[in-house]
């Protein structure tokens, strides 16, 4: 790639202009970038790298495994960087990244390992155990059965849904994508997204209510 032999261009060391450079070692001529590449890198960091937490969470939900999630995110960004020139500026970069990640996931993981729709509850427990320290409870003043549910239970309820429903709920409720963006990501018409959300939420509610009954709440809704 670009290693300094471009005629007519003055090559600058990364440290001069890269705001993320404080961690880098002093460099020699080998580690210089063309202006073009530098510009691409900075734009990439602004547009794409800002979504890393969302992508990581999405990857965790898909793989249920921190190492796999990390690899998946890593690959996604490598690919995104490689194809960044073809990213349509002004469109939703987060949606673009999610789509790449999803495709990577399908290609790499789903074929071999986890069977679709099969939930490994031990894995979920381990997973939640391993991240317990970072959970943050937003406490709603209102007290009803939902607030008694455990994080794990809600997570299990979500994971128990067929993938096509779970996916749209995740993208909509957790990631806040619009229907149009979701339709694009799952490659289905908006009408399909609408009806999957409708049916998925119904199923989810039924699941949550079975957990809630365990706590002795009457869920036949009278308010």
């Amino acid at each position, binding site marked *: 790639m670009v290693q300094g032999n471009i005629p007519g261009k003055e090559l600058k060391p990364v440290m001069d202009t890269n705001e993320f450079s404080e961690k880098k070692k002093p460099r020699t001529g080998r580690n210089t970038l063309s202006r073009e590449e530098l510009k691409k890198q900075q734009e990439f960091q602004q547009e794409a790298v800002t979504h890393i937490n969302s992508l990581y969470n999405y990857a965790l939900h898909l793989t249920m495994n921190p190492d796999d999630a990390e690899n998946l995110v890593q690959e996604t960004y490598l690919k995104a960087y490689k194809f960044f020139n073809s990213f349509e500026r002004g469109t939703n970069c987060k949606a673009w990244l999610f789509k790449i990640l999803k495709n990577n996931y399908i290609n790499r993981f789903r074929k071999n390992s986890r069977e679709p729709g099969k939930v490994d509850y031990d894995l979920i427990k381990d997973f939640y155990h391993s991240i317990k320290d970072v959970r943050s409870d937003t406490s709603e003043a209102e007290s009803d059965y939902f607030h008694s549910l455990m994080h794990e239970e809600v997570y299990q309820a979500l994971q128990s849904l067929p993938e096509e429903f779970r996916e749209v709920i995740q993208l*909509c409720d957790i990631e806040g994508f619009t229907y149009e963006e979701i339709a694009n990501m799952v490659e289905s018409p908006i009408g399909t997204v609408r009806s999957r959300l409708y049916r998925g939420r119904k199923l989810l509610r039924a699941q949550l209510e079975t957990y809630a009954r365990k706590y002795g709440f009457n869920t036949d809704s009278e308010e």
Partner: protein
Amino acid sequence: MNCNKTRVLMSCALDCELSAREEEEFLKHLAECPECAAEFTEAKKTKMIIREKIVRVKAPQSLVESILRLGTHTNPQAEGSLLFDQL
């Protein structure tokens, strides 16, 4: 708007995906129909519980740093390992 149509639009209403006109009719029906109004309250809770209870974690710092190095040629192995080329 009848009950059936209202139920179908419920998810969209939750997500602010109704057109102005649909929304007007939707709200009008809710005002007149206690069953649909109750169902809408439940539907809102379901969305809220997901937002509230699903834990978000931060990406590991090592991952963030390695992504930030992309394009700086300090990470040649990683770039070499890009095997999946279909977008």
